[in-house]
C-alpha cells in the first residue's frame, strides 16, 4: 500500500484510537506506554481517543486504531464510518483481528447465550441489537492487523514509527517457539505439557512459556501452520482432541475454521 504520511506535509498526521465491543484492555496498552508515547505525541495529532480525551474530532483520520469486534448494529455503524474517514485502519487486538473470547458465541446457540444476558430483549435500545460477533475484517477492509490479548506495546510503537518514517511497516510474523527458543526456555510441549506455541503468532517474547505456562494462543494462528501435526503432538501429550479444540476456539475459532479445523 502507499504510505499516506507525506514527508513534505508540515501538518501532523491525525490519529484516532477508537473502540467497539471489547474490554478496553488493548487501548490501555497504548496509554500505558507513557514515556515513549509522549515522544511520539510530538509527531502526531491525537484527534480522537475517547478513553482519555474529552473533546474528540470526527474524521478524516490518517491513522485509526480500532479495538474490539462487531457485536451490535451500533458497532457496525461506527466501524463503517471510521473506515470511510480513515486512510489507514488498523485492527488492534485479537477481538478486532480474530473475534477472541466474544467470538466463542458463534460456536454455541446464539439465542441461548443472548437470553442468559438479556432476559427481556424487547427492552434493548435499537442500536444494541446483538449481531453474530465477528472480527472487523469481516466487514471492512483492514490495512494492518495486530493481534494479541492484549497486543504488545512494541507492536504499536513499531507500526507508528514505520509509518511516520515512510517505511513499509513490519509486523512480527513468527511462531511463539522462536522467541521461546531464543530465550532458552525448556520446551513445555517436549515436557509432555500443553502448549500451542508452534501454531501461534509470537511477538510476546514467549511471556507464558517463560513462566512455565503453555501458550494458550491469545495472538491467534499464523497463516502457514501445520495444524494436524501439532494436534497429534498434543494428543501424544495426553491432551484430548476435545480440549485442544476448545483451546483453539477461545481466541481465534473463526480463523482456525478457515484454516481447516472443524470446531462446530
Amino acid at each position, binding site marked *: 500500500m502507499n504510505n499516506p504520511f507525506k514527508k513534505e506535509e508540515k501538518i501532523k498526521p491525525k490519529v484516532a484510537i477508537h473502540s467497539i465491543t471489547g474490554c478496553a484492555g488493548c487501548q490501555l496498552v497504548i496509554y500505558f506506554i507513557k514515556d515513549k508515547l509522549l*515522544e*511520539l505525541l*510530538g*509527531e502526531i495529532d491525537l484527534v480522537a481517543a475517547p478513553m482519555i480525551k474529552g473533546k474528540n474530532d470526527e474524521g478524516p483520520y490518517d491513522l485509526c486504531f480500532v479495538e474490539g469486534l462487531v457485536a451490535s448494529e451500533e458497532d457496525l455503524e461506527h466501524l463503517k464510518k471510521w473506515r470511510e474517514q480513515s486512510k489507514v485502519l488498523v485492527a488492534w487486538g485479537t477481538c478486532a483481528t480474530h473475534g477472541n473470547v466474544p467470538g466463542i458465541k458463534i460456536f454455541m446457540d446464539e439465542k441461548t447465550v443472548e437470553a442468559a444476558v438479556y432476559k427481556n430483549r424487547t427492552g434493548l435500545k435499537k442500536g444494541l441489537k446483538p449481531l453474530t460477533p465477528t472480527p472487523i475484517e469481516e466487514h471492512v477492509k483492514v490495512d494492518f492487523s495486530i493481534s494479541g490479548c492484549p497486543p504488545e506495546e512494541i507492536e504499536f510503537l*513499531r507500526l507508528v*514509527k514505520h509509518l*511516520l*518514517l515512510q*517505511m513499509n511497516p*513490519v509486523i512480527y*510474523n*513468527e*511462531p511463539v*517457539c*522462536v522467541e521461546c*527458543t*531464543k530465550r*532458552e526456555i*525448556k*520446551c513445555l*510441549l*517436549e515436557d509432555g505439557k500443553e502448549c500451542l*506455541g*508452534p*501454531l501461534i503468532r509470537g511477538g510476546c517474547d514467549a511471556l507464558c512459556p517463560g513462566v512455565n505456562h503453555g501458550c494458550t494462543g491469545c495472538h491467534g494462528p*499464523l*497463516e*502457514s*501452520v*501445520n495444524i494436524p*501435526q*501439532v494436534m497429534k*503432538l498434543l494428543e501424544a501429550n495426553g491432551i484430548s482432541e476435545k480440549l485442544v479444540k476448545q483451546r483453539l476456539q477461545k481466541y481465534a475459532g473463526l480463523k482456525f475454521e478457515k484454516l481447516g479445523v472443524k470446531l462446530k
Partner: protein
Amino acid sequence: MGKVLEKEGLHNFILSLQKHGLLIAPVTTDMTRFKVLEAGDKVELNNNPFFPLKKYFLPNEEPVLKIKNGLTKEPKLKEPKKIIFGARLCDINGLAILDKLYLDQRFVDETYKKRRENTTVIGLNCLNPPSENCFCGSMGLQKEGYDLLFHERELDYYIDVLTKKGAKLVKHLRSEEFDFPLPKTDKKLDPKDLWPFMADKFWEKDNDLCVSCQRCTILCPTCFCFDLHDDVNPATKSGDRLRTIDSCHSPDFTQVAGGHVFRAKRLQRYRHRVMHKLQFFKDKFDRSMCTGCGRCIDYCHSKIDFVKTINEDFK
C-alpha cells in the same frame, strides 16, 4: 605440543580462569545451558548445552548501525573479555565454519571479529556422545576453532593448545606430545550427493511432520541467517539498525520487495534447510555446513530425523 593437567586440578583450574575474564560454562538446572559462572554453580561435564556456542558471537539481536540525528556510525563493541569453558567440538567447528563467512578477507564482520578476538574458547572433547542423535563422527570434524581443548584420559586431562591466547593460560603446566582421538558416534550420516534427490517424495514424509517452529535453525551451531530492521524514533531521528537472527523456515524469509515469496510452501523451506546444510555450502566451500551436533533432531517437536531419511530412503 600440548599440556597435561591432573584430574583433581580441574576445578581449581576452571575457577582460576575468572582472573582473565568473564567465565562462561555449561551449568545444568532444568536443562543444560551456557551461562556466566556464579558462586554455587557446578560445571556440567557430561551434557551438551541446549543453545550452541554461537550465541556469544552472533546474538539474537544487535545493532549494526547507530543512527543519531539522522547521521549513521558503526557501533562500538563494549564487552568484557570472555572465557568459555566446556564447548564441544561440534560447536567449535561450527565457529570455524562461521569464521569462513564472517572473517572472509573481502567482507570482514567487525563485531564478529572483535568478539572472536575477545573470547577464549576452551573445548571439552567428547568421550561418549552426549546425545543418541549425535552424528559428528561422520561429519569430518577438524581440530580447529578453539584456543584450548581438554581431552580426558584415565588419570589426567590432555590439553591441546592451538593459539597463543590459549597457551598463556596453561604455560605453568607440564608439556606432552599426544594425538588425541576425535569423538566417535554410533549414528552416522552417509555421505551422498543430494542433488539427484531434489524431487524425491521422501522430503514430503518429513515435511508432513514439520511444524515450522524454526527450533532446528535457531539451535543450529552454524545457522547464521539474519534480518535487518530499523528502529528509529521519528522525533529525534535517532535509533538503531538491528540485525536479528532469522530462519529459512519462515515464509517471510524469502519475501522480496513487492511482496513476492520465493519459497511459499513449507516443503520448499524444509528441503532448503537440509540442502543448504549438506549440499549448497559444500559445493561452495568444500565442506559440509553441518557439524553433527544432533540438536535439530533432539529438539525438533516431531523428532524429524533427516539423517535416517537420507541414509535409508534416498537411493
